């Protein structure tokens, strides 16, 4: 930066030469401020989503920059929410980017007092083994009159109501096929 540009960038110089002698506005603006723009404008992509909290179904726009969610705000196009969000919906970015979010599989062995790490694949394998064992142990083929039961009451599930329809569909389909009947959901609560 040459001396000349330095001086011309000096707000005092701009005060003296420009339209803002009191140094209140144009002269006092920093380069950083002049270059500011909404980060939604510079986002790499925008996904149209729906708020995950209550059941009103407010539209959300999810802005992504460098693979990270940079902003979540209301979708003004939505005839339901007209771009508005409540405090929870407004906090969606904090929800999905919260440092408290768990990103690693954690494992507590029987009688354990601490969490341990576990590989995701191993966990999946262990869970599958336990499902099959529990199923074998508690399988009911027929009732006392010989009518089919085809089921296990040794496995339970309770799902939240923020699961997608597609997810619920697969959950119900798989559990039904394995004979697990005790599949419940927040909808019962």
């Amino acid at each position, binding site marked *: 930066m040459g001396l000349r540009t330095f001086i011309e960038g000096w707000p005092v110089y701009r005060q003296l030469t420009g*339209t803002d002698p*009191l140094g209140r*506005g144009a002269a*006092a603006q*920093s380069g950083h401020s002049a270059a*500011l723009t909404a980060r939604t404008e510079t986002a790499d992509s925008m996904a149209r989503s729906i708020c995950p909290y209550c059941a009103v179904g407010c539209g959300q726009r999810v802005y992504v920059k460098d693979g990270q969610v940079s902003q*979540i705000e209301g979708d003004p196009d939505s005839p339901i929410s007209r771009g508005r969000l409540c405090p929870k919906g407004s906090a969606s970015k904090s929800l999905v980017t919260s440092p408290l979010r768990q990103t690693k599989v954690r494992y507590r062995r029987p009688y354990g007092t601490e969490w341990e790490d576990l590989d995701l694949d191993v966990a999946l394998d262990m869970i599958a083994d336990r499902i099959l064992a529990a199923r074998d142990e508690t399988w009911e083929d027929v009732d006392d009159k010989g009518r089919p039961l085809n089921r296990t009451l040794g496995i339970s599930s309770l799902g939240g109501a923020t699961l997608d329809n597609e997810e619920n569909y697969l959950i119900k389909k798989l559990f039904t096929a394995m004979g697990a009947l005790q599949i419940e959901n927040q909808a019962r609560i």
Partner: protein
Amino acid sequence: MIPDANSLYGPLDPAPDAGWAEAGPRMGFFTDTSVCIGCKACEVACKEWNGVPDAGFDLLGMSYDNTGALTANSWRHVAFIEQPRPAGHRTPPFAGNPTGAPVSADAAAVGAGTGGPSGTVPGVPPGDPDAAARMVTGPTAPTTGNGTVGAPAGANGTAAVGNGTPEAPANAIGAPPAGTAGNGANGSQFLGMPGAQPPGRGTGAEGRADFRWLMMSDVCKHCTHAACLDVCPTGSLFRTEFGTVVVQEDICNGCGYCISACPYGVIDQRKGDGRAWKCTLCYDRLGAGQTPACAQACPTESIQYGPLDELRERAAQRVATLHERGVPEARLYGHDPTDGVGGDGAFFLLLDEPEVYGLPPDPVVTTRDLPKMYKRAGLAALAMVAAAVAAFVGGNS
């Protein structure tokens, strides 16, 4: 360019005055508290957009307000005021219920004692219990003490009936509160002579029937004559082309002058950071033609954003409508370009006196008197010179 004659005081279009020759219409907020539902979406949306850190996790007991005040870490603040007073336009919520004397004043008084370090400097200090009580009951109100005396009168009645178990015909609580209860709480006339009404002579109203819950989202006022901006020695605070007042975080060196200068107590220093922070009216979003985050989120359009002229017109209509619908207490605050700060860029429709919401009733920008101050300083300086000359010339030792 010669500064406007009203550069320091009086009606002014601030953006051109600050050198924005090409400035568009001045933008601002109109916050209509009559439709505010206190959801705090504005607070959260603001924090999400501007990356404002949390303000601490304290239960303040100030109704549902756990934010406490506008601070460096809360650029929107939703105030909650519980008042056992009529809302004017509707049926009294507790009419016919076996209520005793109201307790809002007492609860507010306790809430006044809460507060403390909240991630800002110097934090939210505790308040004055009497003033808190008066916020609830209005100028006609008894002091804290009065309200408190009333409550146990009812309570003792119940107590006498056997520890309040439901078996007891515990209707004593519905009895007209004895003693000083209800003194003024139900709209007794303020006679202009506080204390003229001796303790014990209440209106005889039966318990609390009326109640209203005021909510209001407070924010930086973006004054026409912004003292914070004018006193800022670094040019960190500046007037944008939208007529708003913004702190430039890359410039601010935390001198703290703006904090003392703000007549609304808005701008604040952040602990650990040292710089001053406040609402920017989402300067970055405005530049991109977007609505500020709080106004976009506001579910009930309590916070409206737009050209200030339009907002003022809309606000005047809204007040007229409310007056028609039997809400005579509706009034505007900060809308008047001839007021002490030249009108606010963010103004409000209130349902009570401004100080009830924590707003100064008649703020005047401090720089109004700046020329006079300089003059006095000059005189003092001359006196100093004269004194020095006299001291050296006039003596003989």
